[in-house]
């Protein structure tokens, strides 16, 4: 429990939350170790867990039968994995795979959603932090779209 509180309190995503709210979150957060190669999320599955990475590197992958699996973004220590749990229909949009052995916090997403619905200050914090994640991913996707290192078109 102590490690969970400690990990939550020091993770950038939760920075600025009061001790009381950290305690609330700690009640439904778990510390996990996952070996490299394990799945954290599969496209289309229920997004019922929200990961906060403490150590290691995960890959967001796109997969289809007619192409090689492609890592399109990596997630690193201090990052979080998943916004799908926050947005209906609460299903994963991409695959996420552990690229290294991972040490991470797994948070019960339905419980966190319910907590956000009641405690709007917590909800505002979470929504704001997730928007930062999305903004960064969106910029990256647009730069990838224009093939920033490629020749001018």
């Amino acid at each position, binding site marked *: 429990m102590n490690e969970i509180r400690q990990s939550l309190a020091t993770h950038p995503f939760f920075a600025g939350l009061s001790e009381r709210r950290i305690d609330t979150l700690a009640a439904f957060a778990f510390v996990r170790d996952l070996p490299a190669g394990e799945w954290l999320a599969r496209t289309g599955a229920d997004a019922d867990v929200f990961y906060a990475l403490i150590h290691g590197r995960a890959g967001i992958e796109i997969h289809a039968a007619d192409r090689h699996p492609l*890592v399109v973004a990596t997630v690193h220590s201090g990052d979080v994995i998943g916004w799908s749990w926050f947005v209906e229909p609460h299903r994963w949009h991409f695959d996420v795979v552990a690229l290294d052995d991972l040490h991470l916090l797994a948070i019960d997403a339905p419980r966190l959603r319910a907590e956000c619905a009641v405690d709007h200050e917590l909800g505002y914090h979470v929504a704001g932090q997730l928007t930062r994640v999305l903004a960064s991913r969106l910029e990256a996707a647009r730069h990838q779209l224009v093939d920033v290192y490629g020749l001018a078109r």
Partner: protein
Amino acid sequence: MDSLADLGTMPAVEPMEPTPYRVTHSRRETVDVTTLTLVPVAAGLASVLPGQYLMVWAFGVGEIPISVSRTLPTGEVLLTVRAVGATSTAVVGTTVGDVLGLRGPFGTAWPLAAAAGRDLVVVAGGLGLAPLRMAIDAQVAQDPTRLSVVVGAREQPQLLYADDLQRWTAAGARVHLTVDAAGRSWHGAVGTTTAVLERLAERHEMAFVCGPELMMTSGARAVVGCGVQPSDIWVSLERNMHCGIGHCGRCQLGSQLLCRDGAVVRWDHVERLLEVRGR
């Protein structure tokens, strides 16, 4: 007019005259990027500062600006060239023994003296690592522990200078690699250089940024977000440089003649100009 009376007898240095250099080595870096090693046929050019460029001329084809990616104590210059147009394709297509004409060195250099004793982050995208290689080498020789290098490329096969990346890491510099997409065997990051910069734990006081313009503008802003003063950020800008000496007027960006006042310029001097479309 009296001051002009002496001009007829002034030393007639012709800045447009190429000096012959012979190709002694050609190394394929990626599918369309090659590094040539050139040695002067007779007398060579003046010594090159990190970040400066040469005008490289192929007989009967044309002349293009190419940043110097390394010089050797024995007088060789190394040029890393991407085959894009007619001249660069001809330059990349040269083989050992061929002769090219070089003019220069031209332009400004990375401010290494100002970086001494400060925490420096170097951000390179794609071919942008070439104009930075001499600066990184110099910084690694000085104080590798105060150096971070962020290198971005489209995919892993497009990353330049694998040997150097390893050597810089071994020397104690923090080297972060990122690509736009990868397979699972890739050990670096996938994402933009900007995302890497936003994640960097180490603090910095100064930044050198070189790569595609979109990467530089977004990268420079991310570096500002890390607390570096805009006046301590340097970027390397390019336009069609023809003469190298501020005479042909083609490489203007506002009041900057980039061939002469650049390519290495201070971010706060150009940020607003780069925002203007068609400037």
